């Protein structure tokens, strides 16, 4: 195998897939390294067509299997056989916790783009200005105008269905038709929007194809709601269905699975990174690949780990860590707070098709002086779900049996509604990951250690999430309204971010406004590590937009440098 490339991308998840596509389409010979196994679109989705009875235990998992994923199972998908194979084996991939942290991830080509929930929301200037306004952490080095056209590009390419409502806190997007509301969603929207003037209920924006626009190699969502298993129609966006095939089509991509990157090598002579060191996950063979440009997309914590391991004389504490901020300011969203209710009066209404999403209530707190709260800053959005329950999974309270029970089981169950907040977390300097060189993994590499906890702002915000959810469901006239405030360890929202934040000043941040490491400009970090604040929107759309933007910056510089080198050579001749 060749060992010199124009560019290297580390990781094939949501952000890495975009880096691969853009760099390859820009003409760069690109090596894409992925620590996990190969997953080819459609061919490698073993459960995509399986019905409940096709699973030996109807989808339930054995205690032995669950024990191997004792951390991953904090996410409900891991408790079911249909998708558990997308999540890592915790015994083989251990990590340490000073305080509880649920690090939920998948090591395979496509990363978490296969299992993600596809919720896609833009950040606004309220978010990009927030740190500066509140004098917290550091200011974002970009504003909405810097990223807007990249949001456009990404949304149009991946396909995002939803609705534009012209809200300052949730900018309009380039959306395909929304998935329509069912009878109860409509009722909820009507009640809330007529009773509250500060909040809207809209169809969730999700990365599914709904319109007639052509997306090469993919087709419209068929409403099967089996997305997490991998979709044979390519109905939702994943690296496997979308960006990686696009990169492949250019002929410029070399994809190497089973390649654990553990160091980016710094070259003192050039002041740049020269390449990456890799261990083959299967053979344990050690390899070195060179490139002019390196994109780090191993996901927030994976990237922090690689950079922290990349020690040199110039960077004794990790590559680009002049500020000491590398690995710090780790954020997530906090979740599992909200309310549930039963809806009466729609017993004769039903629907056809399994809609893979439901409604969204965009942030309505701390947007302006009118909505300012005394107990917390920032805000949260509600994600909801509405549908008729299955009577056989519902815990029927009485011990019924016989003909009546049988009859009951076959009927559509009660209408249920649930809404849960996704809340912004502040970037606390003390929330960090470090490396543990005493507890090594199978490949002799250090494991990461989490020291993260939520603060008062998050805890106070949760109380409001529960209160507002209860109030809204009650206002809508629903019954059996119950508050939910379940334990939510940091990490469980799977939106971890911030370990190599962007900023204006190299003394207080790791990356500049183009996601380049301040002191090592040929290394770009465009996964969640780059986030300066967390906002409350699901973040992946922003990672994609920032990645596309950074890739174009890298391509331009690459071409400029090539031209200069040519000129310089000609002069010498």
């Amino acid at each position: 195998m060749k060992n010199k490339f124009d560019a290297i991308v580390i990781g094939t998840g949501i952000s890495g897939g975009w880096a691969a596509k853009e760099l390859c389409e820009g003409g760069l010979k690109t090596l894409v390294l992925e620590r996990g196994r190969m997953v080819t679109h459609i061919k490698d989705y073993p459960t995509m067509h399986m019905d409940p009875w096709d699973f030996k235990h109807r989808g339930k998992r054995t205690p032995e299997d669950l024990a191997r994923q004792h951390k991953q199972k904090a996410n409900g998908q891991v408790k079911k056989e249909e998708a558990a194979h997308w999540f890592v084996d915790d015994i083989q991939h251990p990590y340490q916790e000073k305080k509880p942290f649920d690090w939920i991830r998948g090591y395979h080509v496509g990363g978490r783009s296969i299992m993600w929930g596809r919720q896609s929301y833009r950040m606004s200037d309220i978010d990009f200005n927030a740190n500066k306004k509140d004098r917290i952490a550091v200011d974002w080095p970009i504003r909405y105008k810097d990223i807007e056209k990249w949001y456009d590009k990404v949304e149009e390419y991946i396909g995002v269905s939803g609705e534009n409502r012209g809200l300052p806190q949730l900018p309009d997007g380039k959306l395909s038709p929304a998935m329509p509301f069912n009878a109860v969603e409509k009722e909820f929207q009507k009640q809330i929007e007529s009773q509250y003037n500060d909040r809207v209920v809209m169809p969730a924006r999700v990365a599914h194809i709904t319109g007639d626009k052509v997306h090469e190699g993919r087709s419209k969502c068929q409403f099967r709601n089996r997305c997490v298993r991998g979709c044979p129609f390519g109905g939702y966006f994943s690296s496997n269905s979308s960006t990686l095939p696009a990169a492949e089509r250019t002929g410029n991509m070399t994809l190497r699975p089973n390649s654990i990157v553990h160091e980016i090598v710094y070259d003192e002579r050039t002041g740049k990174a020269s390449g990456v060191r890799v261990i083959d996950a299967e053979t344990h063979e050690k390899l070195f690949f060179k490139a002019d440009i390196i994109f780090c997309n191993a996901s927030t914590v994976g990237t922090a780990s690689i950079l922290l391991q990349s020690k040199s004389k110039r960077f004794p504490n990790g590559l680009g860590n002049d500020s000491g901020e590398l690995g710090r300011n780790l954020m997530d969203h906090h979740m599992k707070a909200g309310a549930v209710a039963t809806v009466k009066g729609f017993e004769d209404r039903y629907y056809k098709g399994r809609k893979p999403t439901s409604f969204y209530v965009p942030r309505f707190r701390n947007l302006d002086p009118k909505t300012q709260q005394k107990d917390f800053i920032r805000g949260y959005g509600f994600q909801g779900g509405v549908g008729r329950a299955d009577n056989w999974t519902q815990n029927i309270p009485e011990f019924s049996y016989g003909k009546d029970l049988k009859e009951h089981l076959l009927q559509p169950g009660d209408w249920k509604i649930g809404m849960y907040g996704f809340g912004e977390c502040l970037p606390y300097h003390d929330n960090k990951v470090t490396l543990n060189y005493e507890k090594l993994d199978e490949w002799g590499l250090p494991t990461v250690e989490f020291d993260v906890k939520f603060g008062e702002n998050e805890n106070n915000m949760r109380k409001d999430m529960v209160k507002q959810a209860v109030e809204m469901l009650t206002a809508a006239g629903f019954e059996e309204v119950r508050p939910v405030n379940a334990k939510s360890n940091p990490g469980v929202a799977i939106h971890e971010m911030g370990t190599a934040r962007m900023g204006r000043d190299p003394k207080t941040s790791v990356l500049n406004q183009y996601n380049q490491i301040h002191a090592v400009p040929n290394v770009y970090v465009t996964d969640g590590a780059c986030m300066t604040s967390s906002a409350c929107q699901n973040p992946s759309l922003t990672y994609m937009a920032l990645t596309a933007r950074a890739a174009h910056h890298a391509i331009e510089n690459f071409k400029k440098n090539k031209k200069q080198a040519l000129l310089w050579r000609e002069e010498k001749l």
Partner: protein
Amino acid sequence: MERRKALKNLALGMGYTIATPTLLGILNSCVTKETEYADWHAKVLSTKEKYIVTHLVDIIIPETETKGAVAVNVPQFVDLMLKDIESDTDRNQFKRGATLFALHFKEKYNKPILKGSKKEIENLLSIFFDIDPKEVKRLHTLQKQNIFNVPREQADEYSLYKFLVTLRSLTMFGFATSEYIGEFVLSYDPIPGKYDPDISVQEVGNAWSLR
């Protein structure tokens, strides 16, 4: 016996194509006969437990115009789930509960449960299931407790209901997720193709089988 055997061969020979109502009717009529539970080899249930479980499963979801839980192999499913999925503690509690159920039977009818009829077993179940809603609530709360926190004098009640409640929910689960119910009785639609947000229940009929 002759008729049973004949029908059995018929069923095996036909594989998936047994979904016509008349044939289903014929097949159904033989499945709940007394000796049915002898035809398969249990992995964790003893002979006695298998007898109790098969009868109770049949009582919880009986055959009507459509197959009951026994005909869609729920007893086998219960045996499999006990073996592979339930924890050691839960499995032991289940078995302890089954033993207690058999003891209650012996007390009531003065004969071993293996000699009990379906009617007799149903009468016994009724004593434990047809109870005051307040009592049901109390028992649910008791079930949620960790076994190690259950007071000694309530241990038997705990085990007995562990058995009955687990069996009831496994029966519902195994029945509703079986191929026959999922494809032919509930409304089956693996690839809907589109989303119709508001239609009447009549247009669909029984509930959708897939989530």
